[in-house]
């Protein structure tokens, strides 16, 4: 996983927040009149900083934290976010692997945190996934590049909960070992980079998740089932509880 820190300054504040910053800065600077030399100077400097933040629409703290309150028309969060990549080799012909993945409705079978994908018109699709801390996140995506058997690339559309862009590449593995599948994903997590780190703490590291999803994809395409021990019997307080549905039920 790679966290991208943008070097080019850009506006990351919403207009309401910019106005609040300007007004707050003026008020803070004005409040220092009778606070003595040190108090007055400190308030002036801090107030000026807030005014500057508001006038430019740029906040360095937000930049470092990956937080953005400004509305964005750019679905491609090229200037910040998380980049993750993962690969797997599947002992199946390239066409078969490509076809399975290109049929987007198949993806929730193997991608654990994906709840549903619906194909819309014009190469667009609607995605619903399980986000960190039990939140549901949704986005619309469109395919921006497709070379049959080789590449699918997509980006999310404005208004998405998760700004993202990604690609899956396919190529023959050497020695007749099947197909190498490479996923690259760049996204803006809902709570900024802090959110991504928190998610990491709870075991939701994107690269690990993508790798696990790819392994499930491989299991499904090679064997016709996804290995699981969910719903199996065990001792102790969990005995008798069958909290999770079997895979067959999920697929059906």
């Amino acid at each position, binding site marked *: 996983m790679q966290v991208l820190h943008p070097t080019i300054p850009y506006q990351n504040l919403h207009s309401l927040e910019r106005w609040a910053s300007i007004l707050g800065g003026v008020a803070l600077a004005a409040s220092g009149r009778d606070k003595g030399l040190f108090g007055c100077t400190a308030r002036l400097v801090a107030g000026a900083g807030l005014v500057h933040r508001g006038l430019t629409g740029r906040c360095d703290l937000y930049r470092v934290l990956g937080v953005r309150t400004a509305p964005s028309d750019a679905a491609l969060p090229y200037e910040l976010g998380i980049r993750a990549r993962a690969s797997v080799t599947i002992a199946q012909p390239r066409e078969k692997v490509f076809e399975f993945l290109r049929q987007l409705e198949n993806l929730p079978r193997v991608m654990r945190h994906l709840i549903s994908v619906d194909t819309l018109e014009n190469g667009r699709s609607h995605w619903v996934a399980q986000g960190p801390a039990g939140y549901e996140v949704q986005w619309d995506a469109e395919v921006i590049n497709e070379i049959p058997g080789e590449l699918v690339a997509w980006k999310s559309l404005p208004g998405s909960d998760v700004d993202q862009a990604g690609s899956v590449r396919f190529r023959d593995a050497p020695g007749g070992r099947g197909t190498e599948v490479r996923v690259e994903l760049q996204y803006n997590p809902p709570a900024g980079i802090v959110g991504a780190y928190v998610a990491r703490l709870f075991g939701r590291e994107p690269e690990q998740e993508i790798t696990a999803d790819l392994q499930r994809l491989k299991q499904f395409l090679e064997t016709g089932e*996804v*290995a699981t021990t969910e719903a199996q019997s065990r001792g102790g307080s969990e*005995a008798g509880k069958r909290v999770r549905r079997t895979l067959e039920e999920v697929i059906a």
Partner: protein
Amino acid sequence: MRAACWYGSGDIRVETVPDPTIINPHDAIIRVTLTAICGSDLHIYNGFIPGMQKGDILGHEFMGEVVEIGAKVEKLKKGDRVVVPFTICCGKCHYCGTRKWSLCDNTNPNAALLNKLYGASGAGLFGYSHLYGGYAGGQAQYVRVPFADVGPIKIENDLSDEQVLFLSDIFPTGYMAAENCDIQPGDVVAVWGCGPVGQFAIRSAYMLGAERVIAIDDVPERLEMARTKGKAEVLDYSTQDILAELNDLTGGRGPDACIDAVGMEAHGSGIEYAYDRTKQVLMMETDRPGVLRQTIMACRKGGTVSIPGVYGGFIDKVPMGAAFAKGLTLKMGQTHAPRYMNDLMQRVLLNEIDPSFVISHRTSLEDASGAYDMFNRKADSCTKVVMRPS
């Protein structure tokens, strides 16, 4: 059903748990007729295997009768008598296709955990922690067997349960340890550890053409078994200087191949053992590699060190310089059990070996807790316990 469940270091409880059910289409449910405690189960019992959860059902050596099959099971049918290998193998991936069964790509649902720890994951294993998939084990009345058409072998002869049970793990494990030695005519093979795997390694080394086998342990009855049943020359590390004795017994050459059938919980004596024990207690070292060091030091130039004993983490002061200088070959890994099961069963049918010779105790599954304790303490001359679910 009744099952032996793990609750912590030294804490095994036989409990009533839900019966297993078919979850995936290639699953079968087996009614267990005989199961055993493996030496590697003792690593779990002693708390050295990470990734265990309270209530996990143990056991990876078991056999029984097929009582239910999933929609896509074709080779097995209800009523078949089967021995189930401890590795769960999909039969479709590159590794299964090249008979490296224990490295199967597709049967560990928690592969991501092992990816982090080891860089990659091998096959899922029965009853051997959530790192290896968290599959419920066979020390139970019933067990769910995934990919039932791939690993399990049908027993369609009148060999007894005790004669075929060990095809599940320790017989193939001892055999692969000897096979890894690439034994040539005239070779002398030294085997550290005379537990069940060591005993099968000794027998297998002779089957594969070894001239002499030297067995090393400190438990008198195990050395006696190696001497009488295995026809090995024996050394007791508690009273003898192993390196000097091996040098002496091999005309100064050193053994052509050395087998570490002990693994991460090696015992020893003196300063070196105290050092490893201390580091392990302080969690500066996860495994105690005393035997591994000795095999490397003892092995002749150009020889092979074969490691069927289980290691799980990090070890210190391994004499890599000696291994390099002597041009040693080190071979190791979980046993590719399905590769050997049929061939070894033929050897049993031909009376070349009766694997039940390692059994010292027969009991009921209900006594699992006591059986673990006895096997762990090597009490009452215990070398191998088999348990019958009632």
